[in-house]
């Protein structure tokens, strides 16, 4: 970490005070524990770390305008009715690939599933009920633009923090926040799509690595969990696929996402965080039978673990600090 004479710049300062944002410095600051000071800074931070926004701020207007126009066009396409758009020769029962009607029915099927999942996203939060319309459009747009993967359950949860933060930016137009969230989701999905394919190969590889990580850091805990037949395959799929959006409160998840976004490649760090989550509840797990242990991990949010502790443990693993030390200090 570079030392600055008058102390490190805040996230907001790093973004606002320079014509070209130093993303590496942003990453360093977040890594060191800095939190964006406000919603606007977080929204910009995430889009910079995802490389959606370029470091050169003079290019921002053009970049934003491009993808916002692109999104508006995609949404317009979706809303077209085949009766108005279909060319001669196309008909409602057509099975042809390029048939507007066939496409319409595929869209309708996707929509049913998306609708169900959007309504289930953060079910108790009134903010998310307001965001159902935008979420529905974004997910539908993504599934149509990426027909090789389509819509899969879980994408709604990855979208949730993005649309939540972007739409809270003061003064932003709802449709612009929507376009920005669409673009960020598409970027996230470029990395995450291997974990959303029907073949679970990538996911299982990751979960096996998580098992190894746990065995290295906490052999006693790993032995106990293995004896109970509790392996990451049981609890880890959702953690990895959803970038831990279901395991902490929304505010804590945002802090976790700052950290996840500050690293590239991400998976090793996400694995570190996952193994830290398990270690953080080792007291509960060591004394437990299968049912209690499984519940502890499957319903992780009920443990009310502080995300700061998890991040401390994850950092400690990298620096070789002792777990016991961290756990006893909390």
């Amino acid at each position, binding site marked *: 970490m570079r030392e600055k004479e008058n102390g490190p710049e805040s996230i907001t300062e790093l973004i606002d005070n320079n014509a070209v944002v130093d993303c590496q410095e942003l990453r360093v600051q977040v890594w060191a524990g800095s939190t964006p000071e406000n919603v606007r800074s977080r929204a910009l931070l995430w889009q910079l770390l995802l490389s959606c926004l370029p470091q050169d701020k003079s290019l921002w207007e053009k970049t934003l305008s491009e993808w916002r126009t692109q999104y508006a066009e995609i949404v317009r396409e979706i809303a077209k009715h085949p009766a108005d758009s279909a060319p001669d020769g196309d008909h*409602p029962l057509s099975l042809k690939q390029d048939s507007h009607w066939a496409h319409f*029915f595929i869209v309708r099927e996707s929509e049913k599933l998306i609708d169900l999942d959007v309504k289930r996203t953060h079910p108790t939060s009134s903010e998310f009920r307001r965001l159902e319309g935008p979420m529905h459009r974004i997910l539908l747009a993504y599934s149509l633009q990426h027909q090789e993967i389509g819509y899969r359950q879980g994408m709604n949860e990855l979208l949730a923090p993005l649309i939540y933060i972007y739409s809270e930016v003061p003064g932003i137009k709802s449709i612009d926040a929507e376009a920005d969230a669409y673009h960020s989701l598409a970027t996230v999905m470029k990395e995450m799509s291997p974990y959303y394919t029907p073949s679970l190969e990538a996911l299982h590889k990751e979960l096996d690595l998580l098992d190894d990580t746990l065995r290295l850091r906490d052999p006693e805990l790993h032995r106990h969990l293995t004896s109970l037949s509790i392996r990451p395959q049981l609890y880890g799929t959702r953690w990895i696929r959803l970038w831990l959006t279901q395991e902490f409160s929304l505010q804590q998840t945002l802090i976790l996402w700052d950290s996840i976004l500050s690293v590239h490649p991400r998976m090793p760090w996400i694995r570190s965080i996952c193994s830290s989550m398990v270690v953080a509840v080792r007291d509960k797990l060591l004394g437990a039978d299968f049912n209690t242990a499984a519940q502890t991990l499957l319903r992780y949010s009920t443990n009310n673990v502080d995300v700061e502790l998890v991040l401390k443990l994850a950092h400690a693993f990298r620096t070789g600090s002792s777990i016991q030390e961290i756990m006893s200090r909390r």
Partner: protein
Amino acid sequence: MVLVLVIGDLFVPIKKPGLPNPFKQLLVPGKISHVLCTGNLCGKETEEYFRELADQVHIVQGDMDEYLYPERLVISIESLKFGLCHGHQILPVGNRAALNALRRDMGVDVLLTGSAMKIGYVQDDLGGLIMYPGSATGAPKVDDTTEPDPSFLLIDVQGRKIVAFLYLLVDGVSAIKSQVLLQCLVDIFFSGVPRSLCA
């Protein structure tokens, strides 16, 4: 947007073993909301087939149906009233004036009928429509030896607007001709004042 399948005079299994395969390939569940059958299925298996295609199935009595169905049915879809009646009850068979009278008598915007009629439509001077899906299996008419091309109608109903698609199996085997038969706004005034309608 509601898709309505208008189909009839199949005569399964009396005269024909079943729907032609090209038609079966097209008629899949999930797209059609209503099946309106003009009659003469004739057996139960065809009714079961229709019930797998759509949630709403309405069938009227043909002159050779094995089971009993109502003689006439009125079905409201979107902003239009559709009348369903086989037509063998009308004499002389296929008489235009008599069919017009039937449509007015049933109080419907569009009368769907089968019996002797080939696929097509006529419009009366009040703007009412009479549409015929023909025989979905190409079964010959009562006193005829010639077999018509198998056909059915698919109507896209939006409010008072309909777009009717004609599906016809030509060359008896695999070539399906499908085209827009008719596209118009159906607007009927029963005051006797004729209105020009097509959009």
